[in-house]
C-alpha cells in the first residue's frame, strides 16, 4: 500500500505498484451504492475515501487536490447536480471524474461526456469495469505534463497515444481517442509557447504546480480583453497583456481561450432538444454542434456574440476540454456507448417523447428478457419447493407455499410484461401511453366481453392479475399488464351486480344471503368474477386514497369473521403475520396495504368458493363507486340476473 504523499504528475505513475494504491474519492448519496462501490474499489486495492455529499467532496478536493487521483461520482445527488460537480472538479482540480448512474439514458451519458467525464458507468458497477479505471489517471498525466521535462513528454505522448487507442474497452474509448487528439494539440501549443517565452513557473521541475483558478473576476477580465480585440483576433499574448494579471501565464490564457472558443461554438449552435441529438447520433460533425448543450450551460446560453457577461456558474459550465476531441471524432463515444450497451434501437429515437420512453424500456426489455428465461425454468424448480423439508414454523411453510405460487404467477405476468415491453419497443409507438402500449400482451386465461367503460377497462387491466396472484401478492406482475381491451367482462348484469356491491355493502342483510347467491353462480363465471375481483382489488388499491378505507376494513373484518371458508381464515392470519413488514411500515397508509393484501389473499386463493370472492368484492367495493363512474345502482340488482 502506498504511503508516499506523491504529488500529481509523476510519482504515482512511475511507481511499480500502480494502480495499487490509487487514491479515489467516491461520492454517492445512496448509502448502499456507496458501500458496495467502496468495497469493490478496496478489492481492486485502491485507496478509497467516501462521502455522500457533493459539497463535502468539493471541500475535500479543494483542501488538497493532490490527495486524490480520481473521482467517482453519482449523477443524481440531492445537494448538487453531479454534472455540476463534474465540471467544477474538472475545471478547478483537473482530476479525472467518472460518472455513475442508475440509468443509461443517452442524454445523461452525453451530458456526462460533454461535461468532461472520462467515463460513464452504469449501476451496478462491476469489478471488471473498476479494474480498468486507472487508465484515466495515466492518460491525464501524460497529457498534462506541465511540470515535466520536454523530451520525456514527447515520449510519453507517443506512448499515451498508443495506449489510448488500444487499451480501452469501455464505452468511453472512442471518446478517449478524441481526447487524445485534443490533448496532443494542447501539448503542442503549450510547447510552442513555452519555447518562445522561456519558462514561467510552469516547467521548472518543481512538482507542485500552482493551479490557476478562473474566478469570476479573472474570467471577466479575460472576456473583456477578448472583446476588445474581437474573438477572432484574440491571441493569448495580447489577452494576457490586456488582462494585466500577475502570475498568469500565456499558457493559462491560451488553454482558457481554447476552451472558451469551443464553448461558444457549441452554445451558438445549440438549438436543443433530443430530436437534434438523434441526428447527432447519425455521426456527423455538424450535428454534434447542433446538440443541446444542456442545463449546465444555461448561463452561457444567454449570451450572444462578443459582448457577453459571464458569471461564475457559466465559467464552471465550461467543459474541461473534451469538446474539440468530440468534434474531431464524431462517431465517438455516444454511438459506441449506445451500440456497446446494445440497449437502444435507432428506430425509436425520432420523437422527443419516444426518446425518453425508449430509453426507459430498453432496460425493461433487456432485463425482462432474461427473467423470462429464468422464470420459465421455475416450473422445474417447483417440485424442489414441494419436496423441501418442512420448515419449522408456519411462517416458513406459508412462505414456501406462496413462493410456490409465485412462479406460476410471475411467469404469466412476466411473459405478459415481456410481450408488453418488447411489443412496445417494436412498434415504436413512443407516443402511446404506457398503458396502451402494454395492451399488446394477451391475457391468457380470461375471455371477457368488452367492458362498458374505460375506467373499468383500466381497472381490470391492473386487477385481473390479482386473480392469478398468490395470497401475498396484491398487485404484482399484473399491474404491468395491459388493459384488457381484448378481454371481455361478461354481462351487464354482472357489472351491475358488482356495482351494487360497491354502492351499498352495508345494505346486505346477511352473509348467508350472499352465500346462497354465490352458490347459485355458475363456476364458469369464475373467470369473469375473477376479472371483476381484480377490478375490485385494483380499485381498492388505487382507491386506497379513500377515506372509506376504515369502513372497508371494518366491513372486511366482519366478513372475515363470518367466512365459512377454512382456507380463507387460514390464509388471513398467516398472510398478515407473514409479511415481513417492518413496524415502520405499519403506518396508516400501510395498513391499507396489508388489508388489501389479505383481502386479495382471500380472493385469489379460492375462487372455487365464490363467497370468498364476494366477500372480497364487498370489502373493497365501497371505495369504488366513484371510480366506477356511478354506473351501478343497487336497485337494479337481482340475483337471478347474474346466474
Amino acid at each position: 500500500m502506498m504511503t508516499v504523499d506523491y504529488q500529481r504528475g509523476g510519482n504515482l505513475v512511475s511507481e511499480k505498484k500502480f494502480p495499487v494504491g490509487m487514491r479515489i474519492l467516491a461520492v454517492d448519496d445512496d448509502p448502499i451504492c456507496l458501500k458496495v462501490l467502496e468495497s469493490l474499489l478496496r478489492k481492486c486495492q485502491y485507496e478509497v475515501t467516501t462521502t455522500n455529499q457533493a459539497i463535502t467532496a468539493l471541500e475535500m478536493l479543494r483542501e488538497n487536490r493532490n490527495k486524490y487521483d480520481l473521482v467517482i461520482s453519482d449523477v443524481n445527488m440531492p445537494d448538487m447536480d453531479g454534472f455540476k460537480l463534474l465540471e467544477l472538479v474538472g475545471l478547478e482540480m483537473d482530476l479525472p471524474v467518472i460518472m455513475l448512474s442508475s440509468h443509461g439514458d443517452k442524454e445523461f451519458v452525453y451530458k456526462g461526456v460533454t461535461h468532461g467525464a472520462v467515463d460513464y458507468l452504469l449501476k451496478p458497477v462491476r469489478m471488471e469495469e473498476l479494474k480498468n479505471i486507472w487508465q484515466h489517471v495515466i492518460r491525464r498525466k501524460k497529457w498534462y505534463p506541465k511540470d515535466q521535462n520536454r523530451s520525456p513528454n514527447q515520449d510519453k505522448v507517443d506512448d499515451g497515444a498508443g495506449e489510448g487507442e488500444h487499451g480501452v474497452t469501455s464505452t468511453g474509448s472512442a471518446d478517449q481517442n478524441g481526447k487524445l487528439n485534443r490533448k496532443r494539440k494542447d501539448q503542442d501549443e503549450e510547447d510552442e509557447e513555452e519555447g518562445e517565452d522561456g519558462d514561467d513557473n510552469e516547467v521548472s521541475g518543481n512538482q507542485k504546480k500552482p493551479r490557476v483558478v478562473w474566478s469570476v473576476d479573472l474570467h471577466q477580465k479575460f472576456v473583456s480583453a477578448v472583446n476588445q480585440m474581437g474573438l477572432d483576433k484574440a491571441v493569448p499574448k495580447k489577452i494576457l497583456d490586456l488582462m494585466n494579471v500577475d502570475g498568469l501565464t500565456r499558457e493559462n490564457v491560451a488553454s482558457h481561450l481554447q476552451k472558451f472558443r469551443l464553448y461558444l461554438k457549441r452554445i451558438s449552435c445549440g438549438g436543443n432538444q433530443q430530436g437534434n441529438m438523434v441526428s447527432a447520433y447519425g455521426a456527423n460533425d455538424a450535428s454534434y454542434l447542433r446538440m443541446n448543450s444542456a442545463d449546465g450551460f444555461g448561463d452561457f446560453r444567454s449570451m450572444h456574440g462578443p459582448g457577453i457577461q459571464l458569471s461564475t456558474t457559466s465559467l464552471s459550465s465550461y467543459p474541461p476540454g473534451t469538446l474539440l476531441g468530440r468534434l474531431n471524432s464524431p462517431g465517438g463515444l455516444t454511438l459506441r456507448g449506445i451500440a456497446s450497451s446494445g440497449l437502444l434501437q435507432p428506430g425509436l429515437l425520432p420523437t422527443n417523447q419516444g426518446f425518453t420512453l425508449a430509453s426507459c424500456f430498453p432496460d425493461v426489455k433487456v432485463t425482462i428478457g432474461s427473467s423470462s428465461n429464468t422464470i420459465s425454468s421455475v416450473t422445474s424448480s417447483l417440485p424442489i419447493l414441494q419436496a423441501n423439508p418442512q420448515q419449522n414454523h408456519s411462517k416458513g411453510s406459508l412462505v414456501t407455499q406462496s413462493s410456490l405460487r409465485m412462479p406460476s404467477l410471475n411467469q404469466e405476468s412476466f411473459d405478459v410484461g415481456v410481450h408488453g415491453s418488447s411489443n412496445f419497443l417494436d412498434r415504436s409507438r413512443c407516443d402511446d401511453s404506457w398503458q396502451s402500449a402494454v395492451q399488446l400482451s394477451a391475457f391468457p386465461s380470461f375471455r371477457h366481453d368488452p367492458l362498458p367503460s374505460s375506467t373499468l377497462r383500466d381497472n381490470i387491466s391492473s386487477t385481473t392479475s390479482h386473480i392469478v396472484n398468490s395470497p401475498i401478492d396484491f398487485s404484482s406482475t399484473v399491474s404491468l399488464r395491459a388493459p384488457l381491451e381484448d378481454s371481455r367482462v361478461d354481462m351487464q348484469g354482472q357489472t351491475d351486480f358488482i356495482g351494487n356491491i360497491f354502492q351499498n355493502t352495508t345494505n346486505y342483510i346477511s352473509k348467508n344471503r350472499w352465500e346462497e347467491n354465490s352458490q347459485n353462480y355458475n363456476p364458469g363465471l369464475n373467470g369473469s368474477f375473477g376479472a371483476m375481483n381484480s377490478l375490485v382489488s385494483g380499485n381498492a388499491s388505487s382507491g386506497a386514497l379513500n377515506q372509506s378505507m376504515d369502513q372497508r376494513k371494518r366491513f372486511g373484518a366482519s366478513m372475515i369473521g363470518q367466512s365459512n371458508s377454512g382456507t380463507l381464515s387460514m390464509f388471513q392470519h398467516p398472510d398478515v403475520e407473514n409479511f415481513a413488514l417492518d413496524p415502520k411500515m405499519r403506518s396508516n397508509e400501510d395498513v391499507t396495504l396489508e388489508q388489501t393484501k389479505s383481502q386479495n389473499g382471500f380472493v385469489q386463493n379460492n375462487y372455487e368458493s365464490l363467497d370468498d370472492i364476494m366477500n372480497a368484492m364487498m370489502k373493497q367495493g365501497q371505495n369504488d363507486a366513484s371510480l366506477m363512474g356511478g354506473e351501478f345502482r343497487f336497485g337494479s340488482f337481482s340475483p337471478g340476473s347474474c346466474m
Partner: protein
Amino acid sequence: MLGWGVDRLRADMSRLLAILFHQGVLDEQFLQLQQLQDESSPNFVSEVVNIYFHESEKLLRNLRGLLLDREFSDYKKMGIHLNQFMGSSSSIGANRVRNVCVAFRAASEQNNRAGCLRALELLEHEYCYLKNKLHELFQMEQQRVLAAGARYPLQQQQH
C-alpha cells in the same frame, strides 16, 4: 445430529438461492456481494442488505405518500426516489425490484398516475417477497454458523 444440520442448511440455502436466481429475484450482482464478503468484512452482505431494507422502506413510504396525495403532481420528485431505488436495488442484485422501478419510472415520466399506482403496488409486492426470502436466507446462514460452531468447537478455536 448437528453435523447433519449444517449440511442440510447449506443445501437448503443453495436451493433457495438457486430458486431466487431462477425466478429472477436476484441476479449475479448478488453473487458479487457475496464475493466481497471476506475475513475483513465478514458480515458484508447482511450489512449491505439491511441498509437496503432500511432505505427502501423509506423510499416506498415516500412514494406511497406522494401518490396517495390527492393533489399529487410532483412526478419529478417521484422520479428522484425511483432513481435511487433503482440504483440501490441493482447494486444488491435485486433484479425484479429494479425492473419494476424501470416500468414505474416510465409511467411517471408520462405522468400516468394510475400506472404509477399499479407499479407502486407491484413494487411493494416484489420488495416484500425479496425481503422475506433474504430474511430466510440470513436465518439459515445464522443457523448454519451456529451449527457449524457447535459441531466443530475445537476447530473453530484453531482458526
